[in-house]
């Protein structure tokens, strides 16, 4: 078990190194001169040179890379070209709204989708199954901004139960106001994941329900509930976890639309702003952080497989 965890964890290190190299090269080699952008249209060549020098843009590219990676390791992601604030500080401000929203959405998705999938598989071919599957097709096909505006119209404008826009942090304003502001965006974000996870749960459960050990459980006189949740769901767990994990990672990067619709100061909006203004250090920091989140989530999924399945644990 320990050696499995250690191996998985070590395997994540080279991935991050390659990501760092890729991030660095991608932006340095793309067209457009950041110095020219910062200086504006009226800048003289001397001014440009001075800017390049202070930013280190005139050094050979590999020196820039080593310098940059060294800084990274010390936790210094550089300074934003636009706002002159440290990138870490910029991202830290935006991290909480995005991560808390993503966590709430994924929790919501799992709580709704897994039972839906289990019931659909259990009542396979019935009216309930068909209804759940039709709903999930709907969840896939309606664009998130449509669901978003419909939710706002109903719950915020017509009923007036919830605020239309804005965001409150758990760390500053407490859990109540957070939920009040986050529940609509979370609902909007989770529709597609509910559809995805419900479908995966159903398919995986259907596979498992045909297994011999399910028949054994029935032959023991186990109740339907026990067979479904104690025997089948855990065995169906690996593909479901996989979807949940990837879903969560996608969510971190895919919240741009939601953050725009609900005017939430999160990472998604920071990303859009940074790209539009070619704010290299911020873009790099964002890509690194999101890739890091991806890698960590994948690691977490791998490790949870081992918790779930003894056959992986003792490999």
């Amino acid at each position, binding site marked *: 078990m320990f050696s499995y965890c250690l*191996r998985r964890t070590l395997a994540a290190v080279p991935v991050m190194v390659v990501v760092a190299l890729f991030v660095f090269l991608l932006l340095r080699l793309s067209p457009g001169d950041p110095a020219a952008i910062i200086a504006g249209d009226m800048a003289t060549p001397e001014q440009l040179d001075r800017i390049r020098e202070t930013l280190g843009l005139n050094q050979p590219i590999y020196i820039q890379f080593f310098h940059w990676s060294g800084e990274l390791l010390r936790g210094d992601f550089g300074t934003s070209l636009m706002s002159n604030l440290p990138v870490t500080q910029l991202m830290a401000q935006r991290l909480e709204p995005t991560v808390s929203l993503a966590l709430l959405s994924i929790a919501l998705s799992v709580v709704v989708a897994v039972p839906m999938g289990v019931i659909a598989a259990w009542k396979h071919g019935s009216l309930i199954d068909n209804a759940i599957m039709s709903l999930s097709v709907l969840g896939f096909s309606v664009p998130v901004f449509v669901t978003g505006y419909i939710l706002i119209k109903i719950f915020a404008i017509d009923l007036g139960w919830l605020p239309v826009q804005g965001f409150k942090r758990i760390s500053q304003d407490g859990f109540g106001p957070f939920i009040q502001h986050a529940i609509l965006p979370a609902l909007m974000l989770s529709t597609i994941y509910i559809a995805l996870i419900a479908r995966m749960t159903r398919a995986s459960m259907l596979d498992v329900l045909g297994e011999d*050990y399910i028949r054994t459980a*029935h032959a*023991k*006189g186990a109740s339907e509930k026990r067979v479904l949740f104690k025997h089948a769901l855990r065995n169906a767990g690996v593909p479901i976890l996989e979807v949940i994990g990837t879903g969560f990672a996608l969510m971190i990067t895919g919240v741009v639309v939601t953050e725009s619709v609900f005017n939430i100061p999160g990472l998604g909006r920071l990303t859009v702003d940074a790209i539009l203004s070619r704010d290299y250090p911020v873009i790099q920091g964002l890509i690194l952080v999101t890739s890091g989140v991806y890698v960590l989530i994948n690691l977490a999924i791998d490790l949870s497989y081992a918790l779930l399945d003894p056959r992986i644990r003792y490999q």
Partner: protein
Amino acid sequence: MSDDVIHSGSASALVLDIRGLQVATQSSPAKPILKGIDFAIAPGETLCLVGESGSGKSVTSLAVMGLLPKGSLKATGGRIELEGDSLLEVSSTRLRDLRASRMAMIFQEPMTALNPLMRVGEQIEEVLIMHQKGLSSAQRRERVLEMLDQVQLPDIERVFDSWPHQLSGGQRQRIMIAMALILEPKLLIADEPTTALDVTTQKQILKLIKALQERHGTSVLFITHDMGVVADIADRVCVMRHGEVVETQPIEELLRRPRTDYTRQLLTAVPSLRPRAARAVTDREIVLEAIELEKRYGERSAWARWTGKATSQTLAASDIDFALTRGRTLGIVGESGSGKSTVARCVMRMIEPTGGGVRVMGKDIASLGRAALKPHRKRIQMIFQDPFRSLNPRLKIATSLVEGPVNYGTSREEALAKAAELLALVGLPKDALDRYPHQFSGGQRQRIAIARALAMEPDVLVADEAVSALDVSVQAQVLELLDDLQRRLGIAVLFITHDLRVAAQICDEVMVMQKGVVVEYGPAERVLGSPEHSYTRSLMLAAPGRHWDFSEFRPLDRVFEETSTATSTAIIYQ
């Protein structure tokens, strides 16, 4: 007759009484699967339900347990009485209560019948959690350990905490038996419980079921297709075919005086354990030869090297020497893990041997590269075990048959003409060419697989358990076909099997393997008739129904028995 006696005699004492049971598919139109079957089991009795695939024997057992697959099969008529409870009428709650406590079931495939994510002890304990709510967890553990001891598992504390994948097939079946019998049910349904096991393990499991049956007074409904097993364990036998009971008789009566033609056919098709004499040698040309062939598995991985862990190399086969001459059949027999399939795959060069040589028509192919190997590939062709998976379901039979020859430069027209001839040769109609595999039965598919192998005009056929998945009557036909082809085409056959009866009927020479090495090699008549090695002897002793000559409807007059020298060795393999 006897069935009637039991019915009229003491109907109240019956454990299980099935009358006019009908089961049909829930499709429209409904297709009948069981067409009104009757049988009964008295306390302590073992009733064997025998029949070929599609006879409805497993459906019968599932109907009793109330485990018919929902939405596809449904009981449509008749009664099933279990000690006064009418199983088709009771509520689902009552049915759940009866399962495990009054009737329990063990299944064919012990490898998949246990939940891989639960410790085996907990899986047995679950029965107590559900049916004996008053027990404390310490009491439950106590009961489970006692049961593990009864099914003769070693080191029961450790087994309790094991995961299913850490146990062997035989051990898992013992766990299933412990789970089934822990509440002392009146009826145990065993659906082919030993079919997936090696013969020596099968013998132990059958013995265990018998012992526990006597100890607890359990009635057993034993479902099997193996007449040998039937002869060893049954009190009475109920023969089924196409969803109907053909006849029910006490075992001795059935084996000696079968009343129906169908039972007679079934018995006649059981291959005899007495080896046939080797055919006269007509051709001394060696077509296939293995010289000190060896296959090792498990390389040192980078991780193992880095952590300094010991390497775990497995010798799957070592020091294999044999020579096969034209027109002969060499059998490789052994239990699972003996290395017999490894040898076949090395000979086919489907895997790389790690040492020694393989000569096909005198040419060593063991170390040839992909391109150099190609001309030799066509000389040696293979027939696989499962005819349902060895033909591509999306290809017409014609496409499957011409693919090989076309790869070797034959024109398509010529290959097609040849394919039609081959189909006739294996006894299939010409129009089979334009059909798809799903339109054929298992036996027909195996004929197609043979035709496909023959299309390459090979010198050697490798048959890896090629008849093991077939019903006995079909098995007999396919074996006959192989024999016939061999006589006509002079082809040599390397026949891999775990079934000593089949080996005795088809092989000229037999090579017995155990744990990757050859323990005995010689003419079939000698090796299977008077085995010298203790392992071969233990295999022969474990063969079910070995005291009975099925096709002659009488016991064998000369049975291979444990001799004084064999006793000591037999213990080793227990």
